């Protein structure tokens, strides 16, 4: 059964899949032992859940996906306009964006439990023909019998086009989610992605980006902040294929209590992709002796003229700094919160929309308070 799940969730060949699930094998196996029924896509959403994503700023530009299916009832595309078209064929959604969209479009994925453990999956392919779009994506869920979701997405960003993706995934410990984000960037195309990953029984993000056209650019920011027994596995696979392409990756990880975090950041610069510039920084903070974070930056270069820098660390809160704050009167729990928030700041600083940045900061806050050690 674990093998069947791997088949569903994987990319690459069987061997590569298995290797990439190395640190999450046990979590996957435990999921595989459970029976799941098909999740109900017509269920009513309780007010508490709706309140989590009902942002004033995105009314009229909101798509709500309940257990894998677009919900007519909760979505609201009144203001989206003709630049966006959506079609469905055999359970796969095809989204086409052609033109500049000034206001962010929100996509909400809801994990709603049934009486028994339930399961959903969805496939999306998105094409940004030209222009610029901001997508604010949110994964939310309710605690209950357990939900296992899988979302596979292919995004093509056309020549000179740009996508800003802000993705917030805040899940209770009964929800598991597999996400594949497969991005293809044409010449001079840009993807700016910010991921915030919180909670979940097993959260896995596979993000693969191909810098296929000259001067294509990826900026990836991300943070996971975990507590309880949350398990988050992040796998980045960036391929520089064309000349003068650039990637700039900054990820932070925090694990408290018995949480488990994994960051794997692989950058490949293919033969002929000269003039490429690849940067990866991953720093992690352990807040309890029982927490664990594994980080693995991998750089493979087959081109001659390349600028590349990468670094990864796992550490603890700086005790000297903590004492400094306390010696000025700041209570221990507040001092820890201040330090942990500061640790994540770099990731959110790139979000230019101040309301959105504050909102994400606010959502992160309860996950970084104080720590337990």
């Amino acid at each position, binding site marked *: 059964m674990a093998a069947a799940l791997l088949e569903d969730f994987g990319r690459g060949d069987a061997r590569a899949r298995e290797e990439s699930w190395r640190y999450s094998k046990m979590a996957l196996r435990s999921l595989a032992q459970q029976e799941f029924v098909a999740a109900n896509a017509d269920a009513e959403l309780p007010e508490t859940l709706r309140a989590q994503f009902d942002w004033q700023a995105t009314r009229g530009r909101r798509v709500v996906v309940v257990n894998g299916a677009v919900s007519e009832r909760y979505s609201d595309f009144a203001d989206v306009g003709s630049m966006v078209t959506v079609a469905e064929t055999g359970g796969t959604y095809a989204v086409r964006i052609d033109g500049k969209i000034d206001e962010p479009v929100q996509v909400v994925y809801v994990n709603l439990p049934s009486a028994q453990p339930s399961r959903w999956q969805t496939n999306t392919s998105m094409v940004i023909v030209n222009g610029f779009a901001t997508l604010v994506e949110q994964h939310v869920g309710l605690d209950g019998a357990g939900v296992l979701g899988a979302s596979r997405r292919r995004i093509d960003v056309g020549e000179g086009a740009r996508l800003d993706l802000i993705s917030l995934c805040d899940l209770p410990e009964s929800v598991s989610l597999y996400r594949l984000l497969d991005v293809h960037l044409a010449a001079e195309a840009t993807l700016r992605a910010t991921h915030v990953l919180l909670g979940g029984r097993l959260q896995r993000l596979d993000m693969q980006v191909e810098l296929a056209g000259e001067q294509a650019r990826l900026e990836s920011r991300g943070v996971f902040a975990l507590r309880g027994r949350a398990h988050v596995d992040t796998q980045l696979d960036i391929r520089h294929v064309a000349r003068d392409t650039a990637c700039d990756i900054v990820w932070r990880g925090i694990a408290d209590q018995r949480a488990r975090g994994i960051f794997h950041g692989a950058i490949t610069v293919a033969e002929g992709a000269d003039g490429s510039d690849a940067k990866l920084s991953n720093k992690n903070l352990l807040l309890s002796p029982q927490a664990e974070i594994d980080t693995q930056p991998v750089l493979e270069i087959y081109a001659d003229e390349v600028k590349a820098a990468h670094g990864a660390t796992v550490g603890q809160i*700086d*005790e*000297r*700094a903590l*004492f*400094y*704050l*306390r*010696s*000025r*009167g*700041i*209570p*221990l729990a*507040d*001092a820890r919160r*201040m*330090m942990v*928030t*500061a*640790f994540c*700041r*770099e990731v959110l600083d790139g979000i230019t929309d101040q309301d959105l940045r504050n909102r994400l900061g606010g959502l992160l806050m309860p996950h970084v308070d104080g720590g337990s050690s």
Partner: protein
Amino acid sequence: MLKIENLHARVAGKEILKGLSLEVKAGEVHAIMGPNGAGKSTLGNVLAGREGYEVTQGSVVYEGKNLLELEPEERAAVGVFLAFQYPVEIPGVNNTYFLRAALNAQRKHRGEAELDSMQFLKRVREKLAVLHLKDELLHRAVNEGFSGGEKKRNEIFQMALLEPKLAILDETDSGLDIDALKMVADGVNAMRSPERAFLVVTHYQRLLDYIVPDFVHVLADGVMVESGDASLAQKLEEHGYAWIAERKLAGAA
């Protein structure tokens, strides 16, 4: 205000303070001098409550309370302030945010009303002027990218803002040029009052030309070996610490 009796303290298993006694009354400025390794910085850290400094014997009473029982943040709230010898850089924590959080946490602990941002900024501007610190430093992260002199002046600026009752200056003069030294001294002198006491820990006599102490103590090998008025600092400057060691030996013989 502060009464230290027979204080013994260990750091990493090694005894550094070996029976130190000192009494400080409100309004007084005490200078503590001594050679490297005498225990000067250990004393400051023990008083501020730093982890890893283990008191094995003796007592520290501050305003009638056992100071050693309080957490570092509680000591700050009752008015104890340590100006660090090596101020810590804290990337990502904004200086203004940090100072306001610190001041309001102390006020809250004392049952006083918290300051709003207007009241806070007014107070900040007044104190900045005294130390000739640029406004711009407030927008940076705590001590990040500050020069050595800026870090030390920032310590005194924090002291001015937090208005402690007992301020401990741990080698605030080290690494300062003469102009910065004067600014630091001006900052301290402006705060001298009958309600406030200072412990000025220093290696050199130079700072004491500008902050004239009421008492000077010489700390050597974990105990006070000599006490006197400001003229003792002058004598030390002339004869060096070896002079004290000789006198101590002569006394023992």
